[in-house]
């Protein structure tokens, strides 16, 4: 993949973003689901607008966001803190209802949380009162469909065998995140929604976790929406990086990352990777400044 190709793509994306999501009258769908391997989009977000109402003062968190995520696509949502990234994820998960617009998954409007849409939280949310084994079994157990071999396999793959009877607090941060990943995978979701899952880990552990996540993703063919404010992480992981503006959150630009797979960690030093990174940093820098000004203004 040459530098020229990516630049071409950039111009298409620029055009799309200047169209503006609200003026974009055409029905979204197959055209924008460019990264989808199967063509049809799994997740369709149309004009998603979310207004929070903390004590009377309306806060516009997300303003008319359009985004499609294809089957088996790995999409990273990149944006400065407080830009509404998590709000988007919470709307897809079904925790929040949009103020305007809608989110469809598999053609159906999202209303409630559902086991087909699994979530990994920023701070690990393993149940502290359950052992690692009990946590891993939780999803299947709710449906009385525990497959012990599958749980064993997942724990083994993530280096957690032997820790089944340990409680989460007895494990390191990296192991806790792996256990949370196991809990999610044991439930076999169609899409994995991950909200800055590795942001609390040290740099080394973070790298290892990213590689493990990619291994799992490549092996099991799943759809992932991964939220991060770490530019390098976004490019390393994603098929497409969706750069968001500062609040109110909109899509600023979409970067298609055509780095070869499987990805290895030494890739981050290549020229190709660096050029993606420069572009993303340029895009996000202004937004980060705006976000900071907003935070200071409060």
């Amino acid at each position: 993949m040459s530098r020229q190709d990516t630049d071409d793509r950039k111009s298409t994306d620029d055009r799309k973003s200047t169209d503006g999501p609200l003026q974009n009258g055409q029905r979204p769908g197959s055209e924008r689901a460019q990264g989808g391997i199967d063509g049809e989009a799994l997740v369709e977000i149309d004009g998603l607008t979310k207004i929070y109402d903390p004590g009377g003062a309306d806060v516009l968190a997300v303003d008319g966001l359009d985004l499609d995520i294809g089957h088996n696509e790995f999409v990273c949502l990149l944006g400065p803190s407080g830009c509404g990234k998590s709000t988007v994820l919470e709307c897809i998960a079904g925790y929040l209802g949009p103020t305007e617009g809608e989110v469809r998954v598999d053609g159906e409007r999202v209303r409630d949380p559902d086991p087909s849409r699994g979530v990994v939280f920023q701070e690990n949310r393993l149940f502290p009162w359950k052992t690692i084994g009990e946590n891993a079994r939780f999803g299947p157990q709710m449906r009385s469909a525990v497959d012990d071999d599958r749980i064993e396999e997942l724990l083994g793959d993530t280096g957690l065998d032997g820790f089944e009877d340990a409680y989460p607090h007895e494990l390191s941060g990296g192991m806790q995140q792996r256990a949370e990943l196991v809990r999610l995978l044991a439930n076999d979701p169609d899409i994995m929604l991950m909200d800055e899952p590795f942001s609390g880990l040290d740099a080394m552990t973070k790298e290892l976790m990213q590689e493990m996540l990619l291994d799992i993703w490549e092996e099991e063919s799943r759809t992932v929406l991964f939220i991060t404010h770490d530019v390098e992480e976004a490019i390393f992981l994603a098929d497409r990086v969706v750069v968001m503006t500062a609040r109110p959150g909109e899509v600023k630009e979409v970067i298609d990352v055509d780095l070869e797979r499987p990805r290895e960690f030494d890739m981050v030093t290549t020229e190709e990777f660096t050029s993606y990174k420069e572009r993303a940093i340029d895009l996000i820098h202004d937004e980060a400044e705006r976000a900071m000004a907003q935070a200071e203004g409060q």
Partner: protein
Amino acid sequence: MNTRTFGLDHRRIRGREVPLPPRWMRRTLSIAGFLFLWWWAQAAGVPYFQFELFPGPIETLTALVGVEAAGEGAGVVIPGTGMAVTGYLAGEAVLAGEQSIYFHAFFSAFRVASGVVVASLLAIPLGLLVGTSRRWEDYLYPALESLRAIPPVAWVPVSILLFPTFQLAGVSFTTAVIFVVFIGAFFPILVNTVEGVQDIDTEYRRAAESLGADAQQVFRHVVFPAALPSILTGVTLGIGLGWITVVAAEIVGGNYGIGYLTFQAYRLLQTDTVAVGMITIGALGYVSSAIVLWAANRTMPWNEIEVNQ
């Protein structure tokens, strides 16, 4: 000055490091120091206070336990020595009555236990309801909050009027005292249960829902276990308050029990028995809280609760 370096305790006196006595010794000194102060205040007298009316530590301890030549009646005879263990701990009758201190202690403990058990059975489900449902919180909490403002001891007169006394196997049971204990234990358990439920991080609920749990499963697997440390903290606090209230209620309305014993001893000017009663209440309160804490921490290997009373 006392410095702590790598677990070694020492202090510096004029540039030289002098080791501190080991920890158990310091802790024993704490008790010994207290007993000495008590003895000294009583023996030497302190201006303003009428310490001469109060027994010293030695009289109190001999009232609790002593060894005498086995004579007529009192004491537990040690075989082959001609000696006998005497004192209240050996089962000697108190207040010139027939009952031993164990009888009174059992009575108080029974009242505390039944009051706390009934309080738990009501306050925990109620707290879970109020904590999970905004609607029920609106219906129930204002009334409960205003009742909570009344100190439990202030319920004593009303409860003596309201509750009957039973005669059972020649012993009269005053249910009023149990009710006062119930009031004392109920509110800390209720408040801690409500707070325990309301303080649960939303993301735990969300995680469970996204894993496929329905409302009932969320309650069973998330809400209840997440609130459990707080609930058991409430129960432990409830027991502490139970001991406070049982003493107050027994002074006014009990025919038996450590509170009754202590106050009767005061009326009869048996001051060593007063001191013994105080020590017994303290010990029973401490032991029962410790038992509940131990049981609570065994039930919840993921969470250690500590309660400062």
